[in-house]
């Protein structure tokens, strides 16, 4: 029985690993010149399945925080983002002549393809060899015990949250700044995508249930992140999902505040994070230095701002441009792609 209990999870992981690699090949494979809408949608749906299987794999490897983020952001949110982008692609024509006209740019020539395949095979073998040689180093436990030693002082009991929001809070601040940079860049690239003109009745009927449930789940994930899998990123993704649902049902602002307040919503996370960091510098002489009793309150403060900010940035990225906000947005949504 104990042999079976050991073998079963390993067998499940092997099945998951094989499926993940096969799905990746399907996501990226197919006809060399196929670039139409149906082909793209098939790829994106397979990519969502790929992300969900990865989430299962992360959970099986003892990384539930990563699994939640992968399912919510890597599969769910990125899937919605990519799927919305396929709407702009031309539909494949049935006859060959116009299909050739719609085919995208020609990929590299056969000679170069052979060279690329050869180079990548060599690189893969080298990489695997290097990983094989570093296996003993990978197996030694170095940072784990260090985190466990200081965990009681970090203000949270979930070690991943402790690393993200306390021990390496500086990295997380920079990461949110990267997200902000991307969101701001996207806003500069043109008007937001128009909301669905004729939202489906069933989806609209679901909104009064789904959106509050998503907000509630976001609040729960934010709170529970201190001692169990969860946290600002997963909670922010839940709120962003509510925004996507609102956009799909005709609200072109996707639940973002009015244009006047949007920039503030976007920079809120970085601003609060920075303020807490500077307060730590003034009081303890260490940027983002907080330990002991006040740490849990400060982490909750940062995470609340981060949840709202990450949600605003993700929704803004989904809208794919300068979102007008719910009051003014529907006007801007009338003429997608029109020259300003």
């Amino acid at each position: 029985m104990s042999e079976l209990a050991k073998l079963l999870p390993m067998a499940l992981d092997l099945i998951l690993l094989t499926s993940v690699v096969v799905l990746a090949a399907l996501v990226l494979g197919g006809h060399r010149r196929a670039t139409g809408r149906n082909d793209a949608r098939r790829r994106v749906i397979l990519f969502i399945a790929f992300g969900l299987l990865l989430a299962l794999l992360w959970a099986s490897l003892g990384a539930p925080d990563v699994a939640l983020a992968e399912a919510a952001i890597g599969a769910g949110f990125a899937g919605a983002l990519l799927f919305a982008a396929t709407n702009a692609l031309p539909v494949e024509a049935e006859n060959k002549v116009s299909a050739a006209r719609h085919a995208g740019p020609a990929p590299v020539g056969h000679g170069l393809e052979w060279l690329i395949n050869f180079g990548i095979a060599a690189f893969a073998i080298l990489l695997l060899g290097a990983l094989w040689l570093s296996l003993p180093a990978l197996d030694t436990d170095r940072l784990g015990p260090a985190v466990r030693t200081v965990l009681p002082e970090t203000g949270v009991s979930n070690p991943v949250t402790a690393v993200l929001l306390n021990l390496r809070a500086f990295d997380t601040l920079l990461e949110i700044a990267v997200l902000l940079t991307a969101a701001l860049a996207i806003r500069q690239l043109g008007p937001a995508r128009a909301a669905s003109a004729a939202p489906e009745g069933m989806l609209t009927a679901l909104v009064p249930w789904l959106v509050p449930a998503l907000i509630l789940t976001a609040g729960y994930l934010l709170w529970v992140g201190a001692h169990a899998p969860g946290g600002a990123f997963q909670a922010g993704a839940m709120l962003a999902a509510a925004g996507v649902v609102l956009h799909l049902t005709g609200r072109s602002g996707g639940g973002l505040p009015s244009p006047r307040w949007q920039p503030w919503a976007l920079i809120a996370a970085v601003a609060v994070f920075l303020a807490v960091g500077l307060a730590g510098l003034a009081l303890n002489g260490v940027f983002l230095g907080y330990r002991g009793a006040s740490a849990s309150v400060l982490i909750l403060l940062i995470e609340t701002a981060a949840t709202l900010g990450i949600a605003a940035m993700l929704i803004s990225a989904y809208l794919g441009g300068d979102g007008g906000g719910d009051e003014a947005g529907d006007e801007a949504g009338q003429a997608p792609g029109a020259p300003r």
Partner: protein
Amino acid sequence: MTALELIAAPLIIAGVGFFLVGSLGVLRLPDLHSRLHAVTKADNLGLGLIASGLALQADGLAEAAKYLAIWLAILPASAVAGHLIARLALRDARTAEAHKPTRTPS
């Protein structure tokens, strides 16, 4: 094996069976609408059986409630998603029909 496990195990096995039938339906049925029919119905039932089986073995009421909450969240989501996919397929089929070149009846 406790009495609870004796009730839970058949529930989970039956749930997996429904998932298997639903997945077989997706692979074997001829068109999108019948495939959707298979996957939405069989998977919802299968998930419900698995969730109740796991809830019976859960540590405490809070964990059991979470399993049931997962099922309750999936039910409307999969119903609406199935409906939306069917509607979209129908709309695509109609547009394709409208754009088809008209043939003279022989």
